[in-house]
């Protein structure tokens, strides 16, 4: 996406935010239920591990699975989604014009998105970090050692500003090689044109895992920036934000309690605690306040899986990328994710 289109669409987004009627409380759920499908953004092309297309043309990836989880919470059926292929710059106009109901597209919560674009966010479902990959033969232990070297990065993105300010703050001078597409950037790095390669964490990790010799590259420990990825919705519909937050909480809570798609039926038949019993709909109450059925969380876990299952098959050990959870682990495993309490 070039700068022109980005500017145009940002302007269109601001204009839409000013003109579009805000979503009223509960409106989105009603509209989705009337349509029978939840409209989520996919991608034009794909975003590895988050939204990609399998051999049969079906979408998969972490963002897609979260959308399926929400659809399952609403309809009890993960297939009740309609993945709309849209580009990055189109996210906001598409959301505001109602083409999609929610943006789950590796997008961070920012002040300007919240205020200028008139959007609101769920809790964070993934912590995106900006990281740097380096050729192992250079023997770098952190970015400081790369003084005088070069760094490849995607042009005109937040990555470029993050790298520049990190280098400046730490008094490192490096040559910045900014290139247009992801393929160009990684080709330039792997062909040896640059010493290092800066990108959003999952992108560099995936690039390293796909390299000819994955052991010839090392992910530097520097975290240049952190972006908490959130689900993003139109302002004004609190019920819709609740559904997003509680769907995410359900995935995390199930992981915390060891409930998986495999054992959910046993646990529901014989819940270890009143909280879990209510969560799985064995006793009533979990759905009413949200406008959902009482077995919504049970459906999500049985048909989609808990957060860990989703992560492992999208990005983790069951995927070609084999990424560790790191910060995106549950609080009890040393990460920063946590569910809210199902009381």
């Amino acid at each position, binding site marked *: 996406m070039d700068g022109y289109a980005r500017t145009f669409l940002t302007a269109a987004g601001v204009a839409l935010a000013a003109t579009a009627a805000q979503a009223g409380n509960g409106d989105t759920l009603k509209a989705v239920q009337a349509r029978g499908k939840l409209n989520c953004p996919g991608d*034009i092309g794909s975003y590895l591990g988050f939204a990609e297309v399998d*051999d049969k043309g079906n979408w998969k990836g972490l963002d897609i699975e979260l959308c399926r989880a929400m659809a399952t919470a609403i309809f009890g059926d993960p297939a009740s989604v309609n993945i709309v292929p849209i*580009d990055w710059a189109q996210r906001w106009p598409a959301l505001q014009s109602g083409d999609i109901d929610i943006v789950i597209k590796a997008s961070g919560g920012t002040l300007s998105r919240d205020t200028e674009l008139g959007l609101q966010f769920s809790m964070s479902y993934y912590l995106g970090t900006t990281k740097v990959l380096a050729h192992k033969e250079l023997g770098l232990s952190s970015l400081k050692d790369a003084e005088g070297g070069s760094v490849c990065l995607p042009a005109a993105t937040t990555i470029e500003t993050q790298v520049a300010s990190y280098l400046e703050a730490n008094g490192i001078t490096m040559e910045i090689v900014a290139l247009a597409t992801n393929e160009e950037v990684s080709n330039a790095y792997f062909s040896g044109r640059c010493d290092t390669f800066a990108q959003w964490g999952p992108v560099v990790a995936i690039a390293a895992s796909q390299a000819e010799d994955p052991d010839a590259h090392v992910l530097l420990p520097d975290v240049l920036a952190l972006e908490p990825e959130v689900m993003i919705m139109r302002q004004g519909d609190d019920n819709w934000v609740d559904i997003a937050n509680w769907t995410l909480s359900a995935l995390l809570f199930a992981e915390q309690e060891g409930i998986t798609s495999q054992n959910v039926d046993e646990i529901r038949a014989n819940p270890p605690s009143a909280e879990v019993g209510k969560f799985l709909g064995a006793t009533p109450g979990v759905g009413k306040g949200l406008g959902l059925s009482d077995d919504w969380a049970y459906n999500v876990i049985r048909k989609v899986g808990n957060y860990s299952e989703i992560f492992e098959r999208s990005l983790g050990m069951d995927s070609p990328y084999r990424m560790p959870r790191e910060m995106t682990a549950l609080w009890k495993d040393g990460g920063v994710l946590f569910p809210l309490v199902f009381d």
Partner: protein
Amino acid sequence: MTQTTPTRAVPRRRGLWRRLRHDYAATPAAALVTLVCGTILVAIAWTLIDWAILRATFDPAAGREACRAAGGACWPVIAARWRVILFGLYPYDEQWRAALACLVVAAVILLSCLPRMWGLGRLAAIWATGTALFYLLMRGGLFGLTPVNEQQWGGLPLTLFVFVATAVIGMPMAIVLALMRRSSLPGIAIPAGLLIDAIRSLPLLSILFTCAIVLPLVLPDFLIGEKLYRVVFGAALFFAAYQAEIIRGGFQAIPRGQEEAAKALGLGWRQRLVRILLPQAFRLALPATINQFVIAFMETALIVVVGFMDLLASANTAFRTGEWTFAHVEVYAFIAAIYFAFVFGLSRYGAFLEARMDAGQQRS
């Protein structure tokens, strides 16, 4: 094209070797240039053949490791992902419909390229049938075909649809705009000129965005329609503005005497236009028109920015998955071949038309 001009050059009877020497190595400098260029060409050809055939992997079951070991092109990516490349997100079980729809478009284009089909009635019949068949196959909903939303269309059928619809809607608009701009009534000529210049001063991208995103906010609900058709309309408008100027250029190149002679013979406006002016204008504008068609075909790839999976976008999708990220060159080579086949066909057809029209010209 001048093949039809009977140039009877006296055949110089010389051996092949002497002729080659005369053409490519007449002087030592020429010989050197031939040698250098020849070496470069052979080196490029060899690298390509080596990559694409000799060291390539063809076993459809081979994965990344096998391809890496062989070192050349990794064609199994096409075997695994060709349906994503060609049909994008069109439902897997229904993709035979998308394939048939592509054949329908190809058949319609081929039929209307045949000179014996050139007649308003015949062309209209071919296109009406073709469009109906294409739409029925792609959209479904009748005769037990599952409905498939326009949002799910993708790949080759979408690219063909956008191109053909742009040209078919844009061409009549272009003729009307060109005629309006030539009108002697300022009330008609000036608005047409303004419209053409306004459209030509906007980038296609912004027109597509406006049609896809801004129009729904402005138009009354019953006029909004499906996004695909709004975007096609925008592309057609853009095509028409440029094509109108090309046709106007054709009109201007016709000697004034032609129209005056027709008037003197008592031909009415319609007859002058249809029998005398338009055929000549089109003949004169043909090279530029073919150019415009080729550009329009290439520009279909822009619809990706308003959320359609055209051929290029579905190709991007095809290699951007865990197993195949390394194989983007192979996928691009594959779609480059598809684009090449279409555009080369188009320009050869243009050359055929020129030759045909030239022949008519020279008999007179």
